[in-house]
């Protein structure tokens, strides 16, 4: 008996080894290298894509546009898919770093809402397909702020001295100040920028801190009354603390997009387009949106989302508010002016 068992085991082992080898010897599956923001996809979507198209996906994550850009620019990696934000895409287009996408291969592109096509950073929509979008606005604690919040001006109100959190990000902080003053947040006009600088210096004594990701802990913990945040983070914070409310001020704000692009380093453009098309599939886009919590540009996916999500003004604000929102443009040489203003504000 023991002997039979032994030989049976040996047989099983041998068979599994042969099968294993056979698996390796089978034709090499094509590879697709994807570089996306951290925690910015429903990971089961990747598995499904691999299975459906018999393609291996190598998936890496980055934390900032700048980090991603530096890595691609250095040319060390041959990614096939990137998902950067608007102004970075503009810069990459200008520097001839992106492939034009063959939209014949992306039939699901028709599900993207027309509002999100031909955006300023890619005016003829040749290089990018929108993945997620959102706004910048004010998150406030209803227990600490009793009045209606509808204007950026509340961030300059003495009443909330040392209870205001600003973003430690020069584009966002100078941008909302320009919006409050009624200017474009992409302005290159020296006088308008000078005015924004004066306002930021005036605001500084009221600001508790200029923060990055810590804003989430601070607002959930009730450390401050008002904060400038991104809408996606606002959805998360509201879920954690029901006293929090998010609003896009009436003066308008920044609206941002993370879009899918194919860098020139790509060796597998066909597979990359297959992947983009897959992400635009309503069911897949719905699953990603449900997982991430940001706003989807896919109008069919939107219909699949539950009513309480789509009626939440945090993620899906009214059309009228969006009309006054602007996309960040690549400032090119004028970025130095913004940098100088921000340094002057912070060096006070």
């Amino acid at each position, binding site marked *: 008996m023991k002997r039979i068992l032994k030989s049976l085991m040996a047989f099983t082992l041998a068979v599994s080894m042969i099968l294993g080898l056979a698996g390796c010897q089978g034709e090499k599956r094509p590879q697709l290298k994807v570089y996306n923001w951290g925690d910015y996809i429903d990971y089961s979507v990747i598995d499904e894509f691999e299975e459906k198209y018999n393609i291996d996906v190598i998936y890496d994550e980055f934390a900032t546009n700048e980090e991603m850009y530096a890595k691609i620019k250095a040319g060390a990696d041959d990614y096939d898919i990137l998902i950067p934000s608007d102004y970075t895409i503009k810069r990459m287009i200008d520097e001839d770093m992106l492939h034009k996408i063959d939209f014949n291969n992306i039939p699901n592109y028709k599900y993207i809402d027309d509002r999100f096509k031909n955006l300023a950073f890619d005016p003829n929509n040749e290089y990018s397909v929108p993945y997620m979008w959102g706004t910048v606005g004010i998150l406030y604690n209803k227990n600490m702020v009793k009045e209606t919040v509808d204007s950026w001006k509340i961030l300059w109100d003495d009443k909330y001295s040392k209870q205001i959190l600003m973003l430690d990000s020069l584009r966002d902080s100078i941008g909302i100040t320009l919006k409050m003053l009624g200017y474009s947040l992409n302005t290159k006009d020296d006088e308008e920028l000078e005015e924004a600088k004066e306002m930021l210096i005036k605001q500084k004594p009221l600001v508790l801190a200029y923060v990055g990701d810590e804003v989430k802990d601070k607002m959930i913990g009730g*450390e401050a009354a008002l904060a400038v945040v991104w809408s996606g983070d606002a959805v998360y914070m509201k879920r954690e603390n029901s006293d929090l409310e998010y609003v896009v001020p009436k003066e308008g704000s920044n609206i941002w997009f993370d879009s899918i692009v194919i860098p020139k380093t790509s060796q597998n453009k066909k597979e990359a387009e297959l992947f983009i098309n897959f992400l635009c599939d309503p069911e897949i886009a719905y699953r990603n949106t449900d997982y991430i919590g940001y706003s989807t540009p896919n109008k069919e996916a939107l219909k699949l989302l539950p009513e309480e999500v789509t009626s939440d003004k945090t993620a899906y604000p009214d059309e009228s508010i969006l009309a006054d929102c602007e996309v960040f443009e690549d400032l090119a040489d004028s970025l130095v002016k913004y940098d100088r203003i921000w340094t002057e504000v*912070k060096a006070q």
Partner: protein
Amino acid sequence: MKKHLMAYPYALWMLIFTIIPLALILVYSVITIDDAGIHFTLDHFRRVFEPIYLAVFWRSIKIATISTIICLILGYPMAMILASKNLSKKSILVVLFVIPMWMNFLARTYAWMTLLERNGLIATIIGYFGIQLPSLLYTENTVILGMVYNFLPFMVLPVYSVLVKIDKAVLEAAEDLGATPFIVFRRVIFPLSLPGVSSGIIMVFMPALTTFVISRLLGGAHFTLIGNLIEQQFLTTMDWGFGSALSVVLMLIIILSMGFAMRYEKENQGGGLW
């Protein structure tokens, strides 16, 4: 000959990770790249000496100096206690002192944030006694506190390692010749410990001058230090030329301050860095 060969891996390491990067920074600081090509320029350095940037340098040097002095005042007696011959459990004390350094520096700084914030531990405990504290977080003093906390071991350990090596016979001789304990300290112990003090000062002053994390987390980014400015140039503005020029000036400041400390390094007793 053998010794010579064994130095090659390290020499290669130095070349790749120290010399080449340094050379690159030097090159970036004096060139500008446009469509026409690469040009030599001193504009980046000219910009460093504009008032707003000088103000940032001045603030960084001031905060780093204050932190270093506090570290010295707190650390020197600590090193003496650790080194005193009467202490039987000395090694345990030394280990206790070093243990916090095993934890990641960022995690320790985050811990201070939760201790000091408005609804944090310290404010809550003091609040029980009916005392309303002013904001503890996000002031210049909080930044100094963070620096002292993080860099104190770098002061204590070099001073300690020099103090334990002082020949006890020398101290006994001084006492035999009638010196009071204070005179022994002033005329014998302190002068002998100077190499340790000077490396301690360098080891605290350098990271305090260049840090950008402490000022961001504990200072609420209210206070741009030179480290923040350099980080901003490389990551946000993409102005590598200006960022490199700032780095070069910063390195010069550090080399100068090291030069001061180096005067004592000749009679190095083992606590020194170089």
